[in-house]
């Protein structure tokens, strides 16, 4: 029954989103913008300086959990929360999800949204841009230490540093603020799920980005958060597919950008 309702709600949302986007396109009077057929980004397996080339616009599939269907290992995550964290989670609800007020979800949550991400590399750095929320990550790829304590402060996306392990980019992320959630309020893997997915400022994420072939990028993360999780949690491997465009869309999370990104979340 609940699955049926989820399907109905999701269906209604898709129709509403389609109508909304259609209306906006008509209002803008520019016709339906077509995605470019080709991209200029290099598809070569290696960058000119010899690293695996992750450059491109990559799109995942929406992942999450409802009763009986769990595509992001969330039942496991739910079971890992400490009793103290559970107590706090029972006091919160969907409206407390920071993305409701347009705070960007950090990875790995950002990897389960199904929206495009763009990666651009230069020697010593990779840059990750997300379309779902207007935010970027700067990832040193030279294996250097994290930002010095002098400049380090807690953020939504955390402080990243990375090194290559073979052809896999292993990114170490720390210095999160304690506001982010690890999944969405809609994600309820069990009947007892609260849909609340707290993190703490002790969270530490290890990500593995690996380009399998020209059109496929794999992502996997391990989350340690000793203040909220009893043991580390592993995400499943997320598969991203290359999009033939040079860049992601500019999508700002603003009230005037439409109900699907802001007002609906505020519940007004």
């Amino acid at each position, binding site marked *: 029954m609940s699955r049926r309702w989820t399907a109905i709600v999701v269906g209604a949302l898709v129709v509403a989103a389609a109508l909304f986007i259609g209306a906006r396109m008509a209002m*803008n*009077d*520019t016709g339906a*913008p*077509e*995605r*470019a057929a*080709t991209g*200029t*980004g*290099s598809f070569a397996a290696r960058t*000119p*300086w010899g690293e695996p080339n992750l*450059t491109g616009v990559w799109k995942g599939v929406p992942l999450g959990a409802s009763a009986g269907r769990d595509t992001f290992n969330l039942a496991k995550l739910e079971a890992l929360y400490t009793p103290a964290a559970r107590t706090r989670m029972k006091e919160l609800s969907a409206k407390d999800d920071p993305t409701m*007020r*347009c*705070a*960007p979800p950090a990875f790995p949550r950002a990897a389960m949204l199904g929206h495009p991400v*763009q990666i651009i*590399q*230069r*020697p010593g750095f990779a*840059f990750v*841009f997300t379309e779902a929320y*207007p*935010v*970027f990550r*700067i990832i040193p790829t030279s294996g*250097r*230490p*994290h*930002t*010095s*304590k*002098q400049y*380090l*402060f*807690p*953020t*939504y996306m955390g402080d990243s*540093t990375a090194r290559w392990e073979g052809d896999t980019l292993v990114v170490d992320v*720390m210095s999160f603020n304690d506001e982010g959630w690890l999944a969405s309020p809609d994600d309820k893997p069990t009947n007892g799920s609260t849909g609340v997915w707290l993190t703490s400022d*002790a969270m*530490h994420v*290890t990500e593995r980005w690996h380009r399998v072939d020209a059109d496929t990028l794999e992502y996997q993360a*391990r989350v*340690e958060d*000793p*203040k909220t999780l009893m*043991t*580390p949690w*592993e995400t499943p491997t997320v598969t991203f597919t290359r999009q033939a*465009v*040079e*860049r992601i869309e*500019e999508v*700002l999370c*603003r*009230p*005037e950008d439409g109900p699907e990104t802001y007002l609906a979340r505020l519940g007004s």
Partner: protein
Amino acid sequence: MSVRKLAVIAMLGLSSVAILALVAAMGASRASAQIREYTPPKTADPGADWTKRIEEILPPGVESRAEATARIAAYKPDPGKYPVPRTSWDGKPDFSGVYWPDATVSPPPMPLEPLYRPEAREYREHGGAAAGLIDWRGIDTPNYHCWPPSPVVGSMGGTVQLVSAPGYLLLLNEGGSYFRIIPIADERGPQPSAARKPSYQGSSVGHWEGDTLVVEVTNFNGKPWLGPAQAPNRPPQTSSDALRIVERWSRPDAQVFEYRAVVEDPKMLTAPWTGAADRRGMVPYDTVQESLCFLDPELDARHREFAARQTKNKTGAGGR
């Protein structure tokens, strides 16, 4: 965050690792076999600095914006002394660096306001209501709404990071975390396309003219203002979806970059307008930091209430 606080967090982290190790040892079934060894990440030594800074333009201690701006404006680029950095992959100027603040090298040849079409006056008087603003005479400005900075200044805020990468110039704003991804045309490959949804920052396509990166920006959404918020009795300098900007980015030497935009908007302006030539100096950081812009829903609600009251008062007095 204080070092002490960090030390406490680090200790907590370490002790948790110890507890985790104990838990893992006690019950192997609890710990997943795929969990890898965890070494707590190190942070760099205090004062660690990965930027090879040239300290002539902004020596240590220059922290006031006024002084920095004056120094950058007065600076004479010297490529003989500070050769233009070039990329390893195409030999073009490498813009990569963090820059602050902006100094006007030469002002616009003429002011913008006289170029506005008289027939655009009514649209402007409505404060760009079509663009979603409700009370431009008050505090309802693009800035207030967390829109990106004006495209006339390249959508650049106070501190910006530029990144040269194969096929791209990236612009990362510290204020608001806005970014621009500028594909650069490669004469051998397929040309970048500007087709996507109209946006605040438009769709950029760059190409090289010698050592100058020329970027054409189109496909704007008609919302940005071309100038800053005006005095209360002057309507905002709105733009339309016909806005087209041609930017010229150059790197006179290793210390600075320069920027100038030519703005066309046939629905708003009678002729193209040339903006100020801006110069920004490199500062000793190699990345900008996360700094997001949030519109406070409570403040927004109060603001809308205020605007509604104003409208009602005006109507009560027989309109304007």
